[in-house]
């Protein structure tokens, strides 16, 4: 039932975009972007994160999904971490607008926020599944100044996409540049998603 509700909310978001296009603000690519954000591989890759985080963390503090796009990772986190405050933030201000429609009444707090700012807000768990979109130097710097206890980072080897500016050739390369930012690593692994592999590291500051 939950997924039927998300589907219905997604269609409401599409309706909202169409309505806006009737009265001046025309950006129908948002529809395509929204649909893309809910593709099966995104569900699978993010559920993998939730499943592995459950083995590491059972606190009730703030979980911040930075670069959270339209909020799918925050939604999946909230399903399993119901007592936690779950935040989804993104520098793209329209993500919160659509995220609030897509995941209406799901207990997610949406913010418009640069990832560097998000990283110093403080809490228990800092998550980004957008590692491939962030300059490597910036990602390392963000983790270094991060004021959260647990850090979860995902990236991939999907080099073909123009916006993927920080892919890794393999899990070892991914781990090698992130390991120095963490005092302890709980999990480091990869998931084959067909066209590409997704990498994930869960560690402690």
């Amino acid at each position, binding site marked *: 039932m939950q997924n039927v509700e998300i589907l219905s909310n997604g269609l409401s978001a599409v309706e909202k975009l169409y309505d806006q296009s009737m009265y001046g603000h025309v950006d*129908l690519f948002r529809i395509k*972007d929204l649909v893309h954000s809910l593709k099966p591989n995104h569900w699978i890759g993010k559920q993998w994160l939730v499943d592995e985080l459950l083995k590491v963390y059972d606190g009730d503090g703030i979980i911040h999904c930075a670069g959270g796009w339209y909020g799918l990772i925050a939604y999946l986190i909230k399903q399993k971490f119901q007592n936690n405050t779950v935040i989804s933030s993104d520098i*793209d201000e329209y993500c919160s607008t659509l995220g609030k429609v897509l995941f209406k009444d799901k207990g997610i707090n949406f913010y418009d926020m640069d990832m560097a700012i998000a990283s110093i807000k403080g809490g228990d768990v800092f998550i980004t599944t957008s590692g491939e*979109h962030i300059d*490597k*130097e910036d990602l390392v710097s963000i983790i270094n100044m991060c004021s959260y206890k647990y850090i979860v980072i995902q990236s991939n080897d999907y080099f073909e996409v123009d*916006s993927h*500016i*920080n892919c890794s050739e393999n899990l070892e390369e991914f781990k090698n540049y992130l390991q120095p930012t963490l005092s302890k690593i709980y999990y480091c692994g990869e998931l084959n998603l067909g066209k590409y592999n997704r990498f994930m590291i869960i560690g402690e500051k």
Partner: protein
Amino acid sequence: MNIIFVKWGTKYSSDDVNKLYQSLNQYADNAFYCYTEDSSNINSNINIIDIPPKPALKKWWNKLAMFNKDFPIQGNNMFFDLDLNINSNPFYVLDKVNWDTLTMVSREDKIDMLNHSHHHFNVSVNSSVLCWNSNNKKIHEIWNKFISSGLKDYYLRKYVGIDRYIVHEEFEHSTFPFDYIRDEVITHAKR
């Protein structure tokens, strides 16, 4: 006037840069520049401007960095894509260039592809040859909006290339005469 090439990745080689330089140099006694992350084997007469590691951009998106106010050249500039063949003097067009704006190649042959709806995606210009002035603040806005609006990642997903970004984000531009890219002057190499 500066003449600029952009080479990123391995699709184009130093040979492509050097060949285009040789083709153009016979018509122009100008300073040549190549904006690249790999300057190996590029003709020493071409000044190298290094692509910085940050912000990391792929392929043609690096062309937008030429509009950064801190890009290290000044004055009037002319850019050429590396897949162009120069068949005769391409600089005859300079007296028709409006240096107060960005000048792009007209692709009137694409006009039939535009459906004139509000969300049409194809554009009737391309950026295979460009002219602009480095001191023009309106030109700097092309880079500033891309890099500072918080929408860089969205633009990379939405527009696929810089031509659509420039047109659909409504940056002012003009075009060379519609027949500038033609067999007698410049042609695209078939790759």
